[in-house]
């Protein structure tokens, strides 16, 4: 799975060296920056212009039956993951659970959120169970239940950041992270944590701010033109969903985790890391850990360092932008621009895991027929296999570069629009964007370097 994940196929006939793509991407960003400065004089995205879809469309696509059905499907799939993980074969490629969790759930839901809006909210099994339990309790008590605790402001998105970090650690650090039983156990533990969170602070409060995957997919869905609000589907101006994001404590950290985790996944293949990791592992072995634990801890240090590096780079750019004036605090300005990191996080995921999604994603067709890996053939598709010719290596590279460049141009546009809205003097707005340009070029160069590491 790892080989496919990182596109370990040699690109043979690119017309220019890979690093030159990085230079070209930087030029595209610079031209975009100049174009924005001269052709985009007023903020256009700060107001979320939204119009509801026609009533007949809403009646079909957004009704209570759909809610119950989607929630039921989510709960069913949660059950299948745990059942196949605990009861099925412990081969990670022959069992339904790892591919479903790491590929379909973690990756395929990202483009689905961009295309169709916050689909995970509809299918979220924990939210569905929480709502049913609350309804049953209300009905049994024949009265409204006591209000749960108010969600602490300082907690913000920190539980979500911790949840995504834990998921990344399970996937990238723990040596048995792809073992079906591990996946099922992690799902069970995460479910328990989510139920406690919902019981303490209420279903919607916890889902909207604390539940890692709800917050994660909601951030991506803000790039979508489709949005469901107050039970009604509508269309909004493209990109206007992100400026409407109201960052809370931990939102910057969450974005740093999202980008840092992919960064570490790519960097873990680079000689820079493979040379350092044994030394860190040796340090932990010297304090008495087993070789396996020492190596896992070394990888955890690497993952944490990647997240810190991403956060520090962003904060450095914000500090630079702050130096041009405007009277903002570091925290205030970092929150005001944090939505610009969402398209960057998106393209990091899209570019890095493109091949994993395209190739391993096909496996769900035969794994669904044989979830336990015991030879059953429920849907008659168990004999299918992965078509490795679906995407060539050069096409993959061009798509990855296109994703990276497009995402960073979008980020630059969002930052420019926000700067025009928050700085009183247009000159300060443009000057603050010099720093955002450096951030975008930095993340672009890093993304392309990481992708190149899978081609060594």
């Amino acid at each position: 799975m790892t080989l496919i994940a990182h596109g370990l196929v040699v690109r043979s006939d690119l017309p220019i060296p890979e690093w030159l793509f990085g230079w070209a991407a930087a030029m595209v960003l610079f031209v975009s920056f100049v174009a924005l400065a001269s052709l985009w004089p007023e903020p256009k995205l700060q107001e979320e212009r939204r119009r509801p879809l026609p009533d007949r469309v809403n009646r079909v696509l957004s009704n209570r039956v759909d809610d119950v059905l989607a929630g039921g499907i989510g709960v069913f799939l949660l059950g299948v993951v745990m059942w196949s993980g605990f009861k099925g074969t412990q081969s990670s490629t022959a069992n339904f659970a790892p591919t479903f969790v790491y590929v379909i759930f973690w990756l395929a839901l990202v483009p689905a959120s961009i295309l169709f809006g916050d689909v995970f909210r509809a299918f979220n099994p924990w939210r569905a169970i929480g709502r049913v339990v609350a309804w049953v309790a209300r009905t049994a008590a024949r009265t409204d239940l006591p209000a749960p605790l108010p969600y602490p402001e300082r907690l913000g998105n920190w539980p979500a950041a911790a949840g995504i970090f834990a998921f990344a650690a399970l996937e990238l650090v723990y040596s048995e992270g792809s073992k079906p039983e591990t996946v099922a156990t992690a799902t069970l533990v995460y479910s328990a944590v989510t139920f406690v969170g919902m019981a303490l602070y209420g279903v919607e409060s916890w889902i909207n701010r604390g539940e890692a995957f709800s917050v994660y997919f909601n951030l991506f869905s803000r790039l979508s033109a489709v949005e469901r609000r107050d039970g009604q589907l509508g269309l909004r101006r493209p990109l206007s969903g992100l400026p409407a994001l109201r960052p809370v404590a931990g939102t910057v950290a969450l974005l740093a985790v999202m980008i840092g985790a992919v960064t570490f996944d790519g960097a873990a293949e680079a000689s820079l890391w493979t040379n350092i990791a044994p030394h860190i592992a040796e340090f932990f072995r010297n304090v008495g850990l087993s070789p396996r634990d020492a190596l896992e801890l070394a990888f955890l240090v690497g993952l944490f360092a990647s997240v810190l590096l991403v956060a520090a780079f962003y904060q450095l750019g914000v500090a630079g932008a702050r130096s041009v004036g405007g009277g903002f605090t570091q925290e205030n300005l970092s929150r005001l621009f944090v939505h610009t990191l969402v398209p960057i996080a998106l393209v990091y995921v899209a570019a890095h895991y493109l091949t994993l999604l395209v190739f391993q994603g096909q496996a769900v067709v035969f794994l669904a027929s044989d979830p336990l890996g015991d030879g059953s053939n429920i849907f008659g598709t168990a004999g299918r296999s992965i078509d490795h010719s679906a995407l060539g290596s050069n096409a993959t590279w061009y798509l990855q570069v296109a994703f990276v460049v497009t995402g960073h141009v979008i980020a630059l546009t969002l930052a420019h629009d926000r700067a025009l809205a928050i700085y009183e003097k247009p000159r300060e707005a443009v000057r603050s964007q010099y720093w955002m340009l450096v951030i975008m070029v930095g993340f672009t160069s890093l993304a392309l370097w990481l992708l190149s590491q899978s081609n060594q």
Partner: protein
Amino acid sequence: MVLIAHAGHWLTSIAYFVPVLAFLAWLGVTQFIERRDRGR
């Protein structure tokens, strides 16, 4: 010695980050000129 032996490898890696360094240098020069002009 090892450093030189692997020069092709890390020089290629550095090449990816040349645009970042170039933009930082440009930003540094811009700020220096602005401060100098303000000082006058």
